[in-house]
């Protein structure tokens, strides 16, 4: 299984990654996982299937949207959690969560519609052919504008349900990946190993201490 680990690629570069668990790699534990789980998780490191759902235009826009939502903004060629491919596979297989808001289309159509709407915003506001052609800062502005609409309509859809769709798919893919676990100190699968040292402040030998425990809230309230 270890052979399938890309060399040194145990972290996804971003302005925020790698400060807190610099040497932690959950993939060191693969030999301790049960075969069914190991196959599932290690499969995420393998080359992903070719895109089947997104059209080329949607691919460009969705790719840029995921990169901004998840700050996967390393230099070209840097290791990256293949969020675009993971979401594409789910949509191609119609592997939805099993529900939709009455005021939203089924997930696949909702993706197509909202990606086209992002391109329209890019054209109207910046004269660009595609959302993907904009500089990252411009892309972020357009994304933020959707978030800020909350309950109001955006291209005929309730903006908060669009936001829920985007973030749900993006986070589900990204935080399913072992590289994302490395960044947050989560040791991943735990069968058949389990945990023995339970309680506040206690760690197993294979858990790494937080090397830079800064409070992200800065003591400010967000809630």
């Amino acid at each position, binding site marked *: 299984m270890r052979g399938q680990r890309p060399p040194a690629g145990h972290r996804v570069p971003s302005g925020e990654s790698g400060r807190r668990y610099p040497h932690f790699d959950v993939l060191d534990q693969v030999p301790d996982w049960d075969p069914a*789980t190991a196959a599932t998780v290690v499969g995420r490191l393998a080359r992903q299937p070719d895109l089947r759902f997104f059209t080329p235009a949607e691919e460009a826009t969705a790719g840029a949207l995921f990169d901004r939502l998840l700050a996967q903004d390393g230099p070209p060629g840097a290791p990256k959690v293949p969020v675009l491919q993971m979401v594409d596979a789910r949509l191609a297989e119609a592997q939805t969560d099993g529900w939709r808001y009455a005021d939203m289309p089924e997930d696949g159509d909702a993706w197509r519609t909202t990606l086209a709407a992002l391109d329209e915003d890019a054209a109207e506001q910046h004269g660009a052919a595609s959302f993907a052609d904009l500089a990252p800062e411009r892309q972020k502005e357009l994304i933020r504008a959707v978030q800020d609409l909350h309950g109001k309509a955006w291209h005929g859809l309730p903006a908060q349900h669009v936001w829920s769709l985007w973030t749900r798919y993006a986070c589900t893919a990204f935080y399913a990946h072992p590289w994302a676990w490395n960044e947050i100190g989560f040791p991943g699968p735990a069968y058949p190993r389990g945990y023995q040292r339970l309680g506040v*402040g206690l760690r197993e030998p294979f858990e790494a201490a937080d090397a830079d425990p800064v409070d992200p809230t800065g003591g400010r309230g967000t*809630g």
Partner: protein
Amino acid sequence: MSGPVRRRLREAAGTLRLTASSQKAVRQRNASAWLLPEDGARFDHRLIEHMRRFDDTEEVDLVVVGCGAGGATLTQRMAHAGWSVVCLEAGPFWDPDTHWVSDEAGSHHLYWTEPRVISGTDPVPMGSNNSGRGVGGSTVHFAGFVPRLHPSDFSTRSDDGVGADWPIRYEDLRPSYERIEQELPVAGQYWPWGDPHAYPHAPHPVGGNGEILLRGADALGLNARVGPVAITNGRFGNRPHCIYRGFCLQGCKVNAKASTLITHVPDALAHGAEIRTEAMAVAVETDPQGRRALGVRYLRNGREHLQRARTVAVAAYSIETPRLLLNSANRRFPDGLCNDHDQVGRHLMVQGAPQTAGRFAEEIRAYKAPPPEVSCEDFYETDPAADFKRGYAIQTVSPLPITWAEHVAAQGHWGHDLRRYMQDYVHWATLGALCELLPLPGNRVTLSGQKDRHGLPVADIAYSQCDNDRAVVRAARATMERLLRAAGATEVITIERYAHLVGGCRMAARPEDGVVDGDLRSFAVPNLLITDGSVLPTQGSANPALTIMALVDRAAERLVAGARGGPPERGRP
């Protein structure tokens, strides 16, 4: 002796009596735990290979739709009593060794993900948050918290002027609660709320998250208890001990956490029941006059079949049960089977389940140990001083990374902000409230215009809250924030959620008010029962699975007694 000392002694004696008692009676009633393999495998495949198989044309004593909490319990009870039983289950027969993984995203197949539409002013997301499929149903991925309802839950209309009165009382259910608690079996400290009682297994050690709730409760002078969880903590047949790996919501690969796949199905198979998987029920058939159910039509391998039976029980849970009845409309029941009084699908409930997380300088690592650890029911009953009726419970919940990302994203974080916040994961402890939201007639399941891949109309689920609902959720959130801060949290964040569907085909004293009576028999068709979570008239602030199983245990007992002594009397015992 002082009062508190006497109380402690009584609790200790009760606990000792239960934990030291012989398991012989349990094993005679339900030997499932002893029918599991001893060699480390998680299910004895010979039970499936040697399973008795009935022919569709053979009229069996009972056909059950759905093999979850209620369906599997009924199947086991009736097979044990000598009935010929076929249980139709839409999903597969799970093998914990090979089908389940110790991973969040890899567990997607455990959920019911056929399309559904959600509407109303407060729509309730379905999928992973609400219902399962396959043998074991939602108990495969339920957390495993198994508190009882309180005696007050059975008469909220009379006592508080809200909700509905049940056609049975708490006392009618107590023996069934005790039996099911022994069969799961339940581990926990002596329970001081509602009807105080002991549990058969001792409480589990707690992880960081549980420690925080105990610490917060202690600081505020509130009661908190470890448990009650359906996770073995001691010898029980061939059920191994929990390894505290924290993936209870992904299906327990260890067989430590109860699911009906391991607590009731093995004994059902050993007593000749057939569990027919990948069989999707599409309609309950009746005679032309609609006086008797004749069997269930279902799809399997792309072909339609009819399983004939003398008695039919529907146990497909709060969305699929009403949907099946509505899709079973016929000449006698043009608006849906058993829907003479427009009750099918109505009074659907979910608990308000806000989750509040607190930030601690220490490492909590909430992903270790089972998410269900500690409970507090000090706020369960109506508080005369509050501006709302009924109340809420507080429990530990321990989100894994994807679920935690949902919390963080709900605060509006994305991009670098999200990544930075997420890296703080190990410092957060999370509590969840279960708020009793009231049964409202407008919260209901109807058929939408959309069709599923079988060509059947899908369910539209409308949900809107009332003022009392919003007030109780607000109060629960404030209490969780207080608890976390008292435990030392420097920051708190809250996400609004729902949990636990129930209702939709409620039990009532009269046909005008509900779909089934206290014995779970439908008012309209005497040989049709509903044996799942949809029968609950109110939900209290307790997780529902234990109550569902206890109601079915009681209904099964009465069905068996009735079969011996002629048709049972309808209504109260």
